[in-house]
């Protein structure tokens, strides 16, 4: 694909909208790339559900500590000024509204801000929710980074989620490979188009009404 944003560019674009000094929780996948694109002059403090504030980058192979991992069960480091705490404190940070921004991947987002990112609802699937439902209800601002459509071309921005919800009306902004899209009282609204992408292309790939940028 020649036009639009890459995974890295989506993450970099999302990072632009996170204020300096924010406490940030990143979902697994593209959201993890946000750490590589912190804008010059800003500092984000990363929270991971399993009990660490001040999470740093992955360690060198010979510096791995088996007892220092993130919620995705990947080995990480702790930066100077980090803190460890137990799970109830960790989710008090989330549910109590102390985390400023959560960046998540998703399967679907609806025009009213509903998000479905934990289960396809398939009868043979092993249901697994983790901390997703706590995050979407507790964190002040929910950002989503996602491809605009599935691998088979189905829209991921939809009128109504067909998958089971993670939370209703919680998403504020979406960073896709085609555009930055806000969830507004009037539904989806394009804030910014990716380079080389027209509004008509975004509209065609979106499964709900979408307003053009101003």
């Amino acid at each position: 694909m020649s036009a639009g944003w890459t995974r890295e560019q989506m993450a970099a674009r999302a990072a632009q909208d996170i204020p300096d000094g924010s406490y940030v929780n990143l979902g697994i996948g593209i959201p993890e790339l946000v750490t590589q694109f912190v804008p010059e002059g800003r500092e984000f403090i990363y929270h991971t559900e399993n009990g660490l504030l001040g999470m740093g980058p992955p360690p060198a192979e010979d510096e791995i500590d088996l007892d220092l991992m993130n919620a995705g069960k990947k080995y990480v480091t702790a930066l100077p000024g980090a803190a460890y705490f137990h799970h109830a404190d960790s989710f008090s940070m989330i549910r109590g509204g102390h985390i400023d921004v959560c960046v998540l991947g998703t399967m679907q987002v609806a025009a009213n801000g509903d998000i479905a990112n934990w289960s396809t609802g398939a009868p043979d699937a092993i249901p697994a929710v983790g901390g997703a439902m706590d995050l979407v209800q507790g964190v002040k601002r929910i950002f989503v980074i996602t491809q605009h459509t599935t691998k088979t071309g189905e829209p991921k921005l939809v009128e109504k989620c067909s998958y089971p919800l993670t939370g209703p009306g919680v998403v504020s902004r979406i960073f896709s490979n085609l555009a930055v899209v806000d969830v507004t009282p009037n539904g989806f609204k394009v804030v910014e188009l990716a380079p080389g992408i027209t509004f008509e292309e975004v509209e065609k790939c979106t499964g709900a009404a979408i307003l053009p940028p101003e």
Partner: protein
Amino acid sequence: MINKQCPSAAEAVADIADGSVVMIGGFGASGSPIELIHALIDQGAKDLTLINNNTGNGEVGLAALIANGQVSKMICSFPRSSQSKVFPALYRAGKIELELVPQGTLAERIRAAGSGIPAFFTPTTVGTVLATGKETREFDGRTYVMEPWLPADYALIKCEVADPMGNLTFNKTARNFSPIMCMAATTTIVQTRAMVAAGDIDPEHVVTPGIFVNRVVDVPHPIHEDSLIAEGAKYP
């Protein structure tokens, strides 16, 4: 002087009866009390309800306990992972029950049990299938779901440093659910990497006060679940 030390993992878990509800500390491999779990496998108690965030990895620890046919129900937030094969197979075969609880609600239900709070209201799961059948209430214009406390008969816990009073410290993110599980179980059984004398842990640095701990077993060289997985180990 109080001394909660127990000479062996086998003696520490000996009285866990069939049908017990058992909390197991750890988040994935980190903080998993492998030696206590393997002692429970040797002991053989059946029809257990286990509470853990996950369902274990490979064929050791928690996964081995499930594979050994000792567990009838799992209460957890994330029962599958790339290295978790035992639980998914039994679940699909209808041989084990699952109560799926969002991670923060799981933590708070455990904390509530340890704090004598029978239920609480949380926004988590509002408007989702996981709130089906649960009581909801509005506070200041927002809807919340009622969740009950989650007590247990036993907790199996791994810590870093303990003293004979039962005061504990933990290692990095291996702390996770362990301190709240210590509070929520009737009998809390801890394995510690280092046993020190009373007074050697600075009271300012105690993470879990000894009042929440009943038995402490000295396990100076604990096996890490990740190391067992890496070598393809199987227990028993």
